[in-house]
């Protein structure tokens, strides 16, 4: 659209949009990401909004942010430090000052840097000076007044006018990264189809921002990120919650079943329920239950009746489901339980991320009560692991607990769309009417799985329940039968291992240090591992997705490294779990419990520390 003097090619760049909760930063970030993805960049995003209630305007508590990491090589995290910060008010500076790369760019709405706003954010005078940002690339733009100016002839009300401020900022950023406005303009046309003046206003302002950036020379150097060399195929952007929901539907289609989700809203898991509720086109039955217990119990009832029963929640809700998970274990029905982890304990930090529900997932029930536990590691592979959770549940007649987290749930990334035909088929072990009288707890020899007899089938009438039973389904208090059944249930879950892939290594087969992690920390761990490898260290990453049972080659992998460091966003739950299962190895730990993902630097520092024997 214009010519520029210098264009720097950068490998990757991190941009953070930050402003008041009402400033529309999430939309701004999303529009930017979409444009970047359509352009062919690999991206990773991280929305970071405040506590569930709107904090007073202009305060740090009310700051809402959206970070986008884009590059032309593979991008695995939304990035630690940002190259560009868009700060709609002083509080946004306050919240993000220490997360800007030295010398980075700050775009700010200088109209908002009033005395009152400075005070609200806790500044006495100039934030730039107070934060020692003088040497940064500061772009103070009178966004508010320019927006008013640009729209003054349209006769719109003030609210509509000021609401477009974010598009001014977006326009500036588009200019900065040399993006096309087309997709965003199309979005306006679609979104405001019935209000053409609003669409028009947004377009005007977007362009005004774009042009404004162009006009003032301060912006150079322009950063340009060329598309990532990614494999051929059809792509879309997807966030973790949607990917989880879709993985479930895909599995149901493969198994020829209907999805039933029984669930109760809870941050950050609600998106799964919302997406499934919207998927009536795919025949999904969504049941917004009165609480989490009803959520899981309706889902279990639906499984009994022959559906794919699913329930989704976050930590406090998982706690409430504990008892019913036990019932699912006893009745050996297929059931997928999704826990989108958030900061705990108790209500904790509801909008922040953490990996501290692992022990609860493994052991949070009375008695010896094993379930399969798996964890997703990126927003898009939530699809794969939700599919896997459903596959294992259906083929092994067992509840499966899928762990994701707030960071995955809300984060998004481009995703190469799978073709359904390429996904494995799913074959539940239906009972055969030739097996009359039907024995509900009779098992096949290989997997120890019982048969699924669907109500409605003549001749297979049977009774199940939470009391201990014999193979015939009769309630039994016989000591030896109980021990037998406890062992069989454990062994059944253990045998799921036969159908899961080996633990994958990112890096050399052996070396000085193995970084072990699980679930959602993957992106940061991988980036750290790659950087360490390129710095010459003999480091590999093993990120676990299958947690119970674990892959068969773990012991072998562990034995090939001099040290092992277990990195997780909790106080060491997975490390302890490894100690229980592979007691012979020594485990170093890197733990963080701040409601935030790791930073790559933290990981690297810890690793180098170990490698250098400190």
């Amino acid at each position, binding site marked *: 659209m214009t010519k520029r003097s210098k264009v720097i090619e950068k490998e990757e760049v991190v941009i953070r949009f930050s402003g008041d909760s009402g400033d529309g930063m999430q939309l701004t970030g999303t529009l930017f990401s979409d444009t970047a993805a359509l352009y062919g960049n690999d991206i990773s995003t991280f929305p970071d909004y405040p506590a569930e209630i709107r904090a007073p305007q202009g305060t740090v508590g009310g700051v809402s942010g959206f970070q986008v990491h884009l590059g032309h090589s593979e991008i695995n995290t939304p990035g630690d430090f940002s190259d560009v910060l868009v700060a709609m008010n002083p509080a946004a500076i306050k919240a993000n000052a220490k997360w800007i790369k030295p010398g980075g760019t700050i775009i700010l709405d200088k109209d908002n840097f009033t005395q009152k706003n400075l005070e609200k954010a806790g500044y006495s005078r100039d934030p730039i000076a107070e934060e020692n940002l003088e040497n940064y690339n500061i772009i103070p733009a009178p966004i508010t007044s320019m927006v008013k100016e640009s729209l003054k002839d349209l006769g719109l009300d003030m609210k509509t006018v000021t609401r477009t401020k974010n598009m001014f900022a977006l326009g500036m950023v588009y200019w900065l990264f040399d993006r096309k406005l087309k997709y965003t303009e199309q979005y306006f046309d679609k979104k405001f189809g019935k209000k053409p003046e609003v669409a028009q206003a947004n377009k005007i302002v977007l362009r005004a921002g774009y042009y404004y950036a162009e006009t003032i020379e301060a912006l150079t150097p322009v950063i340009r990120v060329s598309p990532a060399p990614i494999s051929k195929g059809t792509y879309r*952007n997807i966030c973790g919650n949607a990917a989880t929901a879709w993985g479930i539907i895909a599995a149901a289609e493969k198994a020829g079943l209907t999805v039933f989700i029984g669930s109760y809203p809870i941050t950050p898991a609600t998106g799964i329920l919302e997406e499934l509720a919207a998927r009536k086109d795919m025949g999904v039955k969504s049941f917004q239950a009165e609480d989490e217990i009803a959520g899981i119990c309706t889902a279990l009832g639906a499984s009994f009746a022959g559906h794919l029963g699913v329930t989704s929640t976050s930590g406090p809700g998982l706690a409430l489901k504990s008892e019913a998970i036990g019932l699912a274990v006893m009745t050996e029905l297929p059931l997928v339980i999704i826990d989108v982890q958030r900061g705990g304990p108790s209500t904790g930090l509801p909008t922040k991320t953490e990996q501290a529900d692992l022990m609860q997932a493994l052991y949070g029930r009375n008695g010896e009560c094993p379930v399969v536990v798996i964890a997703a590691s990126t927003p898009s592979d939530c699809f794969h692991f939700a599919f896997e959770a459903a596959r294992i549940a259906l083929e092994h007649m067992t509840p499966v607990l899928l762990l994701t987290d707030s960071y995955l749930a809300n984060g998004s990334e481009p995703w190469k769309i799978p073709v359904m035909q390429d996904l494995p088929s799913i074959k539940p072990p239906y009972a055969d009417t030739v097996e009359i009288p039907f024995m509900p707890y009779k098992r096949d020899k290989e997997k120890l799985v019982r048969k699924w007899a669907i109500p409605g089938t003549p001749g297979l009438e049977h009774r199940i329940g939470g009391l201990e039973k014999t193979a015939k389904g009769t309630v039994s208090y016989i000591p030896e039968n109980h021990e037998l059944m406890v062992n069989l249930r454990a062994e059944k879950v253990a045998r799921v291992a036969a159908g899961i892939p080996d633990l994958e290594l990112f890096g050399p087969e052996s070396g000085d240090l193995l970084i072990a992690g699980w679930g959602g920390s993957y992106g940061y761990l991988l980036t750290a591992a790659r950087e360490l490898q390129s710095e010459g260290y003999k480091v590999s990453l093993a990120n676990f997705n299958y947690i119970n049972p674990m892959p068969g080659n773990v012991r072998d992998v562990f034995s090939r490294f001099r040290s092992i460091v277990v990195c997780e966003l909790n106080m060491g739950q997975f490390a302890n779990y490894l100690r229980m299962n592979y007691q012979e190895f020594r485990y170093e730990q890197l733990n963080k419990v701040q409601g935030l993902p790791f930073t790559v630097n933290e990981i690297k520092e810890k690793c180098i520390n170990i490698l250098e024997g400190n």
Partner: protein
Amino acid sequence: MSETTVNQLSAKDFKSDQEVRWCPGCGDHAVLNAVQKALSEIGIPREKIAFISGIGCSSRFPYYMNTYGFHGIHGRASAIASGVKVANPDLSVWQITGDGDALAIGGNHFIHVVRRNIDINIILFNNEIYGLTKGQYSPTSQKGIVTKTSPFGTVEEPFSVGELVIGAKGKFFARTLDSNVSLSAQIYVEAARHKGTSVIEVLQNCVIFNDGIHEVVAGKEIRDERTIILKHGEPMIFGKNNDMGLVLEGLKLKVVKLGENGITEKNILVHNAFESNPGIQYMLANMKYPEYPVALGVIRSVPGATYESDLAAQIEDVKKSTKIKSMDDLLNSGSVWKVE
């Protein structure tokens, strides 16, 4: 509604091979008989029936039925049954529950299933005690009762089941006595035919921990005098000699004697179970001896949309109009782009 399919199954065909383990003399035995009798009349094949229960003496019920059965966990029968019915509306779903199971730990699921009007038949065994855990008071125990956890008497008022059901938007409520097998069977048949949640309160005797608690109205000798069996469209008459009746006095019900003070059958209220305004039904459900006879029979039976059929219809609607017919369609919908 009133036609029955011809059915080859007898009550006996609904018995499972499990030994019935309730105490000799427990009212549960009679309920089991009545249900088996009713099912033989209703004419739904065994495989299309599911009995779902919570935990309690009564909740052992599914084991004794030769149908599909799910003995759940304490208090959650309504939720499990909701899942079963919404998943497969073709099944005839029966929930078996106790006063503790339904109204103590299970109170929330209970009021919600009633509100949602899911087509489940709920038989609530009200023995006013926790039988299985050996005799603690329940949310229906009379105020002041001495039990193992109330050695000096309770200090809380009980729920009245009918009142709670109506308060939760209930559309079908009936009451019966464990010992009156034929009345009970009749009611179960009506409940099964009603579309929507039906709650049937059974006044059930626990011979071990709360023996005779309903005897004051349920005793064989006196029950005709102290209960009234309501039938839709019929006058509210009761008594051994059918000479007592109910009339409305102002906003209150009143017991009158036919023949006295010039009262004839014409003055007596006629029962309307189908009236959606619950006013009179509410009073009927709440009648207590000695002021009134206790109401038995179907007290309220109001048609209404059911959750599961509305949901199914909504899904059909959406499916008809959508372009997304398969997972591949969904995956490729919206903003996608090609890398070549």
